[in-house]
């Protein structure tokens, strides 16, 4: 069993996201350790991109802060090397196609796998374009995570059948960010995915911020992903954000 599968083996998974280097890499390192301690089952590390087209204002601003602090892909690889000395929780990179492609897909993927990353999420790479990255990811044992959206409908089965690691179920139309309520029938999306690929863990992301939303989404899936709510804490408290992030992750994990 690879590490990502283990993340879903002990009940509902809680998957927090943060943008590396926001406000600096030292804070990211401390926050990742705190999230692991607080019960995170898998951690998404965002590599900042200048033009993150799938992100709402909160994560867009985090990307801008991280880049203006001088964050680079190489510095994030160093961060992971430091974390992997003692942090064993599964981790996946979340970034955009150009960050991987311009680094050299083979060089990026082999380095990521070598330093102990478990997965890669590229929101601007749909099923039709995944062959750009999938063969290299398979070669080095990095799970390329597939996404389904409320508009996917008859595409769900096709995507789920070839999905690796887990399936990222986008809860709502639009970009990332906190939402008052999620109106999509997420349970149906998950059922369609499981019908095509019964063993595939399905995690729901986009718009989840409160323990109540988390619990409701976890009921119909295998786990939940929270990004903007955590990045907001970072925005609010900066270098002092780590205790609040610890507390938030603990609360959310307990609610599932």
């Amino acid at each position, binding site marked *: 069993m690879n590490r990502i599968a283990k993340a879903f083996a002990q009940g509902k998974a809680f998957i927090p996201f943060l943008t590396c280097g926001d406000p600096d890499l030292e804070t990211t390192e401390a926050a990742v350790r705190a999230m692991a301690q607080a019960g995170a089952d898998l951690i998404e590390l965002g590599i900042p991109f*200048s033009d993150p087209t799938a992100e709402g204002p909160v994560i867009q601003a985090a990307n801008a802060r991280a880049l203006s602090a001088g964050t680079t892909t190489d510095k994030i690889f160093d961060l992971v090397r430091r974390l992997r000395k003692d942090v064993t929780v599964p981790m996946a990179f979340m970034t955009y*196609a150009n960050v*991987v492609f311009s680094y050299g897909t083979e060089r990026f993927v082999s380095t990521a796998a070598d330093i102990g990353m478990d997965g890669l999420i590229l929101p601007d790479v*749909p099923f039709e374009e995944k062959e750009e990255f999938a063969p290299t990811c398979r070669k080095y044992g990095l799970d390329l995570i597939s996404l389904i959206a409320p508009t996917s409908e008859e595409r769900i089965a096709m995507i789920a059948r070839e999905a690796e690691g887990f399936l990222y179920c986008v809860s709502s139309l639009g970009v990332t960010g906190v939402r008052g309520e999620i109106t999509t029938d997420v349970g149906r999306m998950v059922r369609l995915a499981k019908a095509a690929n019964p063993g595939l863990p399905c995690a729901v992301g986009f718009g989840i911020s409160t323990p109540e939303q988390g619990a409701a989404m976890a009921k119909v899936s295998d786990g939940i992903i929270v990004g903007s709510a955590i990045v907001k804490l970072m925005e609010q408290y900066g270098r002092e954000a780590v205790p609040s992030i610890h507390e938030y992750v603990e609360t959310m994990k307990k609610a599932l």
Partner: protein
Amino acid sequence: MSKGRFGIHGGQYIPETLMNAVMELEEAYNYYKNDPDFQRELTELLNEYAGRPSRLYYAQRMTEDLGGAKIYLKREDLNHTGAHKINNVLGQALLARKMGKTRLIAETGAGQHGVATATAAALFGMECVVFMGEEDTRRQALNVYKMRLLGATVVPVTSGTATLKDACSAAFREWTTRIADTHYCLGSVMGPHPFPTMVRDFQAVISREIKAQMLEKEGRLPDAVLACVGGGSNAIGAFYHFIGDPSVRLIGCEAAGRGVDTPDTAATIATGKLGIFHGMKSYFCQDQYGQIAPVYSISAGLDYPGIGPEHAMLHDTGRAEYVAVTDEEAVSAFEYLSRTEGIIPAIESAHAVAYARKLAPAMGKDQIIAVNISGRGDKDCVSIARYRGEELSE
């Protein structure tokens, strides 16, 4: 399977949320492009509403002054709304209406595409929202006013560099949020398939006309066709029907800004490298980590860090040449064409005029150049005056 490739370029690098929308668009386009009723309706709109065909004008004074090749100007600036943008917008708006969409969204740089989209929306009774970099809303205040006058909502975009690429990102984000009733009327030959192909087909009317008009006037094809290139829609339109004619040089004029050896440039072929952004694989101005560069040009319409995938392929195969033209050369050409021919070109189009001034004297008097004047320059007068140190006020 990846679709919409031009050599290694193109594709559909977009969030899953949009995949069904672009597939629905592709299906509708493939159907209507062969539908005689659709084509008849579009031709009628282009002719009766937009004023096509546009003239191919022999620029005698410019030709005599430069003392080389004979110069013809393709007058896309005479189209309704003052630029080539209307060709594409009428096609897409008509398609959107056939698809049952009631709302158009668009990005705009100089504002010409925004004005054209707002115009089509007014004509078809559709709702219209235009995203425009905040920096550009200042550079092109007149076009902002026109869009509002036409009933559109203009949303100033403050993220990133607050220019065309950010307006484009904002429009993509908006489309992800609202797909059912909304068509994203993309303004150039870029983005995910089917946009680069569809927009090129709608703009190809330019080279279809140049070819027929040139054969009628000169009895032969031109030796070179020049057009400015940002995303590249007027250029691909001017090139398309000549791609199969190897005797015709196709020359795209990129915006060098303050120079290709400075960071203040938007010349993608000269300074960019292969990448994946805004739905396509192509060349982009970017740093070593793939962060998209904050490009610069005096021309808001060419101030884009990428180039359409078909141009990237034409560059790879050597079928088209791409040259870089600085702000100073473009401004000087803007003034030159105004004085020499009484035609005030858009600052974008002035980039092509600038290269024609270099090329024509090096060619024989028996040779012919066609320069695409993609738009009119009224919108640029305030900023060019400012560039020359003069502040205009109404």
